[in-house]
């Protein structure tokens, strides 16, 4: 251990000794580990007596701080008839807190110059605030207050349900990709909670009561179900003292056992045809794929990169460039705690059919199941993933998002770089294995989107497509 590291450790021990003297059991703070985060940064993991975890990364690159709160609750923790509750609740967390009227939370944060937002997904709900460094006391106070003293009243719940219903219309009902993705997951999953959308079914959103929301809050919004991820220009000792004061008195709760229902293996291909007001056919396919923590996940992700990512990828070259059957191709291996989907989206050109697209994809998949992929092609895909990771770490918010995501899904905050190292070791054999294991028709769900003839396009009509700025390539 270097002398500077030794001094840091001694200073931390002294800080914790002072903090823990006279603190309640809930407020006791323990340093658990130091985790490497890339070549130059380190993350310190602390745990409070009430179970709250803290991941802290000191970063003086700008006078700002990213302050994220990740709760280990997502749409997977909901049940039939109550879908979308985690997401609705995320909205409600910006409402009234004891001693503060509705709207004050956002108003005060904006006045402090903060940027704040939140998101809900299958496995988690996260709240993020980025603040100028001198505004740390405010955000600690506001965030700790809403973790334990949220006020829920009927008018606010009613209004927020309307907002969420409108969000659903925007993202799903009037959005072709949103609507088809929802259909794909509902087709592919028949047992696991991943079968319903994070935003929830409309009838469930409309039916929520204030009591549903209160029950959800009491059940899941406790310090022992949360991780604070803080990255930025603040000293560790000062931060710990402030957090201890704000969060140390919050009681832990008894978390319910999650009623997980693993998805049984799919044994036959499922096909669905749907009509939409669109000009061209679309093909959406979901192959059952491994969980994020599975040994095969990095290899399947790299294979997806080879096949679909970037203009040099095999399917882009084949479908968009060579055969001119499609406008765009995209794919995504779900990064979830439980097995998810390897999702493909392809938009056909006018006059081409989704069946033609599927035939080409099948032929390309057969190739990667039969022939090893060249080392240069593998290295190229790995370089794309490396660039993507690095580009996402330019801001403190990007770093906090990466840490929080990998902590919540895998329990290892530095796993982004571990995966990068794993990816560099992936061989042609690994890619053959995952291609043969996962890219099988019996494991897939296929949605054929057809243009609705009632939403007819004017023959000979001229369309105008102007915009402020257009990205090219």
């Amino acid at each position, binding site marked *: 251990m270097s002398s500077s590291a030794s001094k840091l450790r001694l200073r931390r021990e002294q800080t914790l000794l002072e903090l823990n003297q006279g603190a309640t059991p809930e407020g006791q703070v323990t340093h658990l580990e130091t985790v490497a985060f890339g070549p130059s940064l380190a993350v310190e993991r602390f745990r409070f007596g009430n179970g709250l975890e803290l991941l802290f990364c000191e970063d003086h690159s700008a006078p700002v701080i990213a302050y994220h709160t990740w709760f280990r609750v997502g749409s997977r923790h909901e049940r039939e008839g109550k879908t979308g509750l985690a997401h609705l609740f995320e909205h409600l967390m910006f409402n009234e807190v004891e001693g503060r009227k509705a709207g004050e939370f956002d108003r005060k944060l904006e006045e402090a110059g903060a940027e704040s937002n939140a998101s809900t997904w299958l496995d988690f709900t996260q709240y993020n605030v980025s603040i100028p460094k001198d505004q740390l006391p405010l955000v600690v106070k506001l965030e700790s207050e809403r973790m334990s003293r949220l006020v829920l009243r009927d008018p606010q719940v009613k209004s927020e349900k309307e907002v969420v219903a409108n969000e659903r219309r925007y993202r799903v009902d009037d959005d072709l990709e949103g609507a088809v993705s929802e259909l794909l997951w509902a087709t592919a999953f028949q047992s696991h909670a991943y079968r319903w959308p994070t935003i929830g079914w409309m009838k469930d959103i409309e039916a929520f009561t204030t009591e549903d929301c209160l029950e959800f809050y009491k059940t899941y919004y406790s310090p022992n179900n949360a991780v604070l991820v803080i990255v930025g220009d603040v000293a560790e000792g000062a931060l710990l003292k402030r957090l201890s004061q704000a969060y140390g008195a919050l009681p832990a709760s008894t978390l319910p056992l999650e009623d997980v229902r693993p998805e049984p293996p799919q044994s036959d291909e499922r096909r669905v045809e749907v009509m939409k007001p669109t000009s061209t056919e679309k093909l959406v396919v979901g192959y059952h794929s491994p969980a994020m923590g599975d040994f095969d996940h990095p290899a399947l992700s790299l294979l997806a990169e080879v096949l679909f990512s970037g203009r040099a990828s095999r399917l882009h070259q084949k479908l968009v460039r060579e055969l001119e059957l499609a406008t765009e191709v995209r794919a995504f291996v779900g990064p979830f705690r439980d097995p998810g989907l390897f999702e493909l989206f392809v938009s056909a050109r006018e006059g081409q059919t989704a069946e033609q697209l599927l035939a080409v994809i099948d032929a390309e998949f057969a190739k990667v199941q039969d022939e090893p992929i060249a080392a*240069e092609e593998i290295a190229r895909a790995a370089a794309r993933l490396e660039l993507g990771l690095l580009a996402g770490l330019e801001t403190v918010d990007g770093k906090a998002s990466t840490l929080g995501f990998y902590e919540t899904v895998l329990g290892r905050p530095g796993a982004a770089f571990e995966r990068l190292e794993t990816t560099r070791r992936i061989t042609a054999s690994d890619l053959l294995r995952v291609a043969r294991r996962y890219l099988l028709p019996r494991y897939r769900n296929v949605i054929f989107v057809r243009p609705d003839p009632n939403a007819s396009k004017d023959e000979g009509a001229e369309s105008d497509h*102007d915009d402020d700025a257009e990205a090219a390539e």
Partner: protein
Amino acid sequence: MSAAANVVRLADAGGAAVLLETSRALPLVSISIGLKTGALLDAPGKEGTTRLLSRLMRRTAGGLEAQVIDTRIDSLGGSLGADVAHSTMVFQATVISRSLAAFVDLLVDVLARPGLFEAELERLQRETLAELTDSLDDDRGLARRFFRRRFFGAHPYGRSVSGTPKSVPEITPADARLVFERAFVRDNLVFAFSGDLDGALASRIAQRLSDALPGGVAPVDDTPEPSPVPGRRLVLVDKPDRTQTQILIGCLGSHTRDEDHVALLVANTIFGGTFTARMTQEVRSKRGWSYGAYSNVPFDRRRQSFSMWTFPKADDAGPCLRLELGMLHDLREQGVTKQELSWAKRYLVRSHCFAIDTAAKRVGLALDQALYELPQDYYSRYLERIQAVTLDEANSSVRNRLSEDDLLITVVGTESVVGGAVRAAVDGLASTEVVPFDRVD
């Protein structure tokens, strides 16, 4: 920290300005190659030429095949794209620093030695036409396009950057080459570097890129100032099966050289610039009518539009539109309050740190300043100007710049469902145009 605090201007490279901020935080280098001209160089009837050219250059760099170029970019751990606007074009390149030298070789080929092959242009035209068809699926994009087209009308800002199904097939190799020869001269360029490289290296790269280009005179932007839309005009973009609407309301907005430009930015912050601004409070928080409700004051070299954006469900479209028009009226008549002004100034000053929290963002602002010919002190005195805005200045800017008489209202929705309510919501409506979502005159 100010926007320009760490950005240095290096010696010009053959007439092209060179900006740099070094940051060793990550092993990445970003290179932006900005042009002071954009899609306004497209000849009438050939809209989309500049954007097609930017893609063609990337695909034919050094006379190579597109697949070879794409493969090389990916292998180096790089990315390269171009953003084309009416007045500017920027090639954005990022690469893992270990591959910088080889990546610069490629950039030289893109900028100075593109093959501009006819067969590749034809392929791009087919691709672009297919993309234009796909874009009809995006309701928000449709609202923006119809708004811009109708708002600016015959003014050059009303022309399409991407091109139209009619203009794109008309573009010839000679058209693309003409724009290339006019735009890619040293005096028309600004190089902006950030990340893992020092001044000496940045200068060498800039010089190399510049040396590969010809001299010559940069085209002059003689675009006239746009005129207001006369009266209250409604454009209903009819699309079947919509459960909600996309509403854009706009009038002429601001120019960066207006004396009240910053005052209008502050007033807009209060009206619709943040999550707790008046629009979000009234439309979303109190009524739950729209997931988002914002207003916007963008800039270009000439005066741009001011616009308000909401997307209520079909049943709420009429009431929401009426509410928004009422809010605009109240803003002009009653102005903002002293408390609101103080709050907005604190927000704008304190949050500015997030516009400049990375080297790439700081260099990006300096690049914008150069490309859009912003006042020299636009960013260096930005915070000072915000703090100096008085209540009278903020309210005068609203009254003088924003109109509630000369307004364009664009609604994307199902006309048979929302048409009546939307028309009834607009008092003094001068004209209504109903247009199918996939058709324009």
